[in-house]
């Protein structure tokens, strides 16, 4: 059986182990983790970007977290949390905790660097026009932070999609099941099929975010970034920090 045979086999497209169900599970885990991570990271990022407090701490923590191997973290937290949680959720909850943990740093970094990288001239202009500090934050700094914030969200999403795949190893549903089960049964077609679907899902989400960026980011902002062609290295490293999830 080849990869193509596996993909077009109708048996793989129906039922509780079918491809649509597993894609659904994969997206569900991704959405839940991102929602929780955003609820934590965006307010915290706004606070750090706005006050400048704790910046070193967060940057250091984000770097340290990058060095932590995802697989080890996943298995460790699973073994620690699994005995505490009973029933159906035993596979899901520990994994979600890991996914959230991995999704927070890119969003956090994107938010606070975005706020800090808001053009000082725009902030000054707003102040000159009589904006109060909260107004400057909501109407100037946050919209200016949006490109880096979205890039952070994108980094988190890819990290979560990737890690949710790996989490099939500790028993999670989702597309990773095909890879892990295929490996267990030495079924290369199933493994490759799962891998292809994961890659396509990641690419589709990447595309979604680039569309999202185009729709949400103010056109004025886009023009100004294009005019400033030689990208300042500050924003490069910021973008790198949000991008470099550990696959």
């Amino acid at each position, binding site marked *: 059986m080849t990869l193509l045979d596996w993909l077009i086999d109708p048996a793989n497209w129906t039922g509780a182990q079918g491809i649509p169900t597993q894609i659904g599970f994969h997206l569900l885990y991704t959405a839940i983790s991102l929602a929780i991570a955003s609820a934590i990271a965006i307010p915290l990022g706004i606070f750090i970007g706005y006050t400048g407090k704790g910046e070193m701490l967060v940057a250091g923590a984000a*770097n340290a977290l990058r060095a932590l191997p995802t697989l080890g973290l996943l*298995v460790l937290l699973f*073994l620690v949390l699994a005995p505490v949680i009973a029933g159906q959720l035993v596979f899901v909850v520990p994994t979600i905790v890991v996914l959230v943990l991995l999704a927070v740093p890119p969003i956090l970094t994107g938010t606070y660097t975005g706020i800090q990288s808001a053009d000082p001239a725009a902030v000054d202009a707003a102040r000159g026009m009589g904006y109060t500090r909260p107004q400057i934050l909501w109407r100037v700094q946050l919209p200016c932070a949006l490109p880096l914030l979205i890039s952070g969200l994108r980094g988190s999403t890819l990290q979560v999609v990737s890690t949710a795949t790996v989490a099939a190893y500790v028993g999670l549903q989702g597309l990773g099941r095909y890879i892990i089960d295929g490996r267990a049964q030495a079924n*290369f077609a199933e493994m490759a099929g799962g891998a292809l679907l994961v890659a396509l899902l990641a690419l589709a989400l990447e595309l979604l975010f680039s569309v999202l960026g185009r729709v949400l980011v103010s056109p004025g902002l886009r023009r100004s970034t294009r005019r400033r062609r030689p990208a300042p290295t500050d924003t490069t490293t910021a973008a790198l920090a949000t991008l470099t999830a550990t696959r």
Partner: protein
Amino acid sequence: MSIDWIWANLGQIGSLFVNHVWLTLIPTVLGLLVAIPLGWWAHRSRRGGVIIIGTAGLLYTIPSLALFILLPAVLGTRILDPLNIVIALTVYTVALLVRVVADGLGSVPHDTVAAAEAMGYRGWQRLVLVEIPVAVPVIVAGLRVAVVSNVSIVTMAALIGIPQLGTLFTQGFQLRLFVPLILGILLCVLLAAILDQLLIWIGRISTPWRRKDVLA
């Protein structure tokens, strides 16, 4: 019991560590070698930049476990071949570094390039002797990110059965043992920290004119 496990498996742990070092270092070096000409092209030509950086972004999107498995299908290698891991990580490193190299070359001051030109440096000479050395701090910053992520990504290969520090995680899971798990995580973090420091040091000695600067 915990220390006993480490002593009993010291030989295995050592060889896993050595495997891990090679699986991290080879792709990082290969990736840099490929990324420099590509990054230079992306820097020089606008269309080249769009194509290369766009492709790099898409490649970086593919989750590592998926890439490890898809590469044999594309290259015709065996699924258990460590070569797949090396190639996959090289792909990620290139994807990360082309952009960094292009930005690094872009950060070289115009005056510097013009001065080199006036002193008779041309083409390759100017690139290798002037532009790349001046871009070293930016490239090293990117390399540090790449090498630290590579240390972590390599562990994923344990899921398809390639021995390296990640093997300690699968062992820990199968045996329900915390010792190999924690040891594996610590060794990964240690290796990442050592390689990171090594890069900082290389960056420092290769840019003697920046001695007073603080490397970001």
